[in-house]
């Protein structure tokens, strides 16, 4: 299946989801819970929003699987970079 043959996604539905997730993010930073819990929630919300944009606006959901792997490759590099730099982190 190619990007030109699939049915048009519900773009306005994706827009409302993005809006709701953004409002949730703004609410999360004022929630009186542990800082690590806030960090974890913000990371999950940000990755969800990024995934919505990539899957529906960029039509990655309807593309070949290999193209998805190409799109994911930078995240592997980022994980590798974090793991490589971890030994150098010495929090004060």
């Amino acid at each position, binding site marked *: 299946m*190619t*990007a*030109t043959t699939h049915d*048009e996604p519900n*773009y*306005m539905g*994706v*827009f409302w989801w*993005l*809006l709701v997730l*953004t409002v949730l*993010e*703004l609410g*999360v*930073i004022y929630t009186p819970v542990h800082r690590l819990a*806030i*960090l974890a929630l*913000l*990371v999950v*919300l*940000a990755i969800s*929003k*990024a995934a919505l*944009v*990539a899957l529906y*606006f*960029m039509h990655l959901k309807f*593309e*070949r699987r*290999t*193209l998805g792997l*190409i*799109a994911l*490759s*930078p*995240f592997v*590099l*980022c994980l590798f*970079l*974090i793991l490589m*730099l971890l030994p*150098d*982190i*010495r*929090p*004060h």
Partner: protein
Amino acid sequence: MSEVAAVHVGVEPQETPLTPESWGKLGMWLFLAGDAMSFGCLIVGYGILRHASSNWPVPSQILGINLTAFMTFLLIVSSVWMVLSLSAIQKGDLPKFKKFMGLVILGGLVFLGCQAYEWTHLITEVLPHHNLSFSKDLFATTFFVLTGFHGMHVTGGVIYNSCVLAAVSRGRYQAKHVEIAGLYWHFVDLVWILIFTFVYLV
């Protein structure tokens, strides 16, 4: 050498197996994967420096959240306008395409205006007030590098989209070219979503 091979030596295949619509689309995806590695390294570097620093300010207390929340909303809306402009040209509705692509360009310009205002405000008022400076403090340096790199991408996107609008109006570009420009614009939106979270909210 067979006759068929002799004819086709040095000739590129007509169709890419990954993106049968066009080679340009595959090219844009490969460019975006490389660009994402640049942004990824900057964001990871930012996180590592911040985690290892003993006196990192709380970003939300220094950077304005309201303005950047509006800028995030603006880029998300402009992404919707972009998909609507693609949808319009795929249906052959040129006036609707022009309207939505014009809005995308306008959205990008307003975003850049907001960023120029934010930077000016930070440099002339907020940072001196907190005794921070662009050249001495990693907080300020990493902030300007990350948001500046993204701002350059938005500038590039506004120019790119303007060229696409002009080329479609002259009948030189079709829907597949708009789709490729859309990929770039959505990527700029996607990166801002991550920057907004990791630089402004965390």
